[in-house]
């Protein structure tokens, strides 16, 4: 590995992360304890069922808001970010249908519906 290679990986990964829809599910110990794993699986299942290829489902660490776990972010082309909180597998499936497929944010489940 040299600097040029490192920068190439950086550029390519950023491009990949900022293209299409990225669903990032919080999977720290606290999130998993709150039920993040079934949420992650439900999302993966729904995405697979519909066969969306511009969607990446990934796991991330802890953003620090324990009271809102399980939670996930939906990030569109590296820009618009919506955080869904206090998720269940059922709610997550709804978000996939409405938001990811339908393009309509499910306001009732966003962080803004829970706190200011």
């Amino acid at each position, binding site marked *: *590995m*040299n*600097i040029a290679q*490192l920068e190439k*990986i*950086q550029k*390519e*990964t*950023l491009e990949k*992360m900022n293209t299409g829809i990225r669903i*990032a599910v*919080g999977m*720290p*110990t*606290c999130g*998993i304890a709150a039920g993040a794993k079934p949420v992650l699986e439900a999302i993966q299942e729904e995405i697979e069922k519909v066969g969306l290829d511009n969607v990446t489902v*990934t*796991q*991330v*660490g*802890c*953003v*620090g*808001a*324990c*009271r*809102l776990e399980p*939670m996930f*972010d939906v990030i569109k082309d590296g820009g*618009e*970010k*919506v*955080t869904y*909180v206090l998720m269940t597998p059922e709610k997550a499936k709804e978000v996939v249908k409405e938001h990811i497929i339908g393009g309509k*944010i499910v*306001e009732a489940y*966003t*962080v*803004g*519906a829970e*706190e*200011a």
Partner: protein
Amino acid sequence: MEKIKAIEESVSFKHQERIALRNCGIINPEVLEEYIARDGYKALAKVLMDMSPEEVIDTMIKSGLRGRGGGGFPTGLKWSFAAKSQNDQKYVACNADEGDPGAFMDRSVLEGDPHAILEAMAIAGYAIGASQGYVYCRAEYPLAVKRLEIAIEQAKAVGLFGENIFGTDFSFDLEIRLGAGAFVCGEETALIASIEGKRGMPKVRPPFPAVKGIFDKPTVLNNVETFANIPQIILRGADWFAGMGTEKSKGTKVFALAGKINNTGLIEVPMGTTVRQVVYEIGGGIPGGKAYKAAQTGGPSGGCIPASHLDTPVDYDNLISIGSMMGSGGMIVMDEDNCMVDIARFFLDFTEEESCGKCSPCRIGTKRMHQLLDKIVEGRGTLADLDQLETLAKTIKAASLCGLGQTSPNPVLSTLRYFRDEYVAHVTEKKCPAGVCKALVDYKVVAELCKKCALCVKACPVDCISGEKGKTVYEIDGAKCIKCGACITACPFKAIIKE
């Protein structure tokens, strides 16, 4: 007004500045490329290509970074001591034995951004001339250990770790050692003993680990959060980091907010943020509109911050001056329903249990202090006991061998300092003002409020409430009552009170 959509826009993110936690919740910790996408391993490349070890240490000193494990020792200075120690072998170790009740920032970093720790430890290795590192992680963090292992394997596979990093002469490898559940192993000399395979007990310092550490070799031992700051300091410069915080405490600090607070969780704020901002703005205040009583910082080693100090800017020195300490950054908020004597007893219970037993002030002293506190909460205390408690506390603080013992009286001393009236109420009036200490509390039915509905009778597990449904006001038999509070919860008219 349009509702917020992303977590970063929420009130709890106001005042936050994320350096140690910058990647947590953003990148996939099990994908090396995502760490690289966020400037990962660029700091390591920079030190290996463009900086001498002296320049690295100089940058650390200028940045003003101090140890985030709680002690607050200047990191650059520690590195310079280890760099000056001549030896054929040196070590870099990471303290991930996070044991303070209520603190979990190290876990969050290890689980959310493990490569940052690898990168920082390699930087430390280059600076002091070490080729081997150890992460001492508590076994209760299996996911953190797993993600660290994945990170090590990934980084080694592409030459960012291990032999000849970035094609240079510098090699650095890492081993993970698991703790076995002893709180004292967070103390540096005990941690080193444990890494060596010995019983985890502290030793007298000096010699300090920077001179004689793991296997008697010069060792730099830093906390997880300290390491997590380092790649950014290298990339963005010492001046950038020193531009944040207070005069003697630079940068940011991660706090774990817990207890009686609405927005529990992890926050990272610049040093110098006031307790009021943390509790009322970021933390969203206290549930149920109750009154703030105190916040415990530094866990069982720290002290409480009373309402009169809400506007104190939080940094290492200010906290010491008001009788608390930074500690690892746990912040437990207490409201009017918490009894401060009971809180002091809770923390002492912890330190007494975790005392390793090597030195008598800690082993015997914490036990005796605990007994005195038991006496007070059970209503057998006297004013002389308070004085004895204070004398004992000061002796333990002065005479104990390691940080665990030296700081164990802090919860007692600080509650005595700010809430002496509560102690006095316990011993002279035999009353617990917060209504927590069972022996000093009586449950009573307020006749005017009682609707004679018998719900309390149904809830009582020991049948100590008597009366006739619809006819008489109920009465609680104080001798039989176990003060469990079930009747208070059951009564819809708030007719049962604690006195």
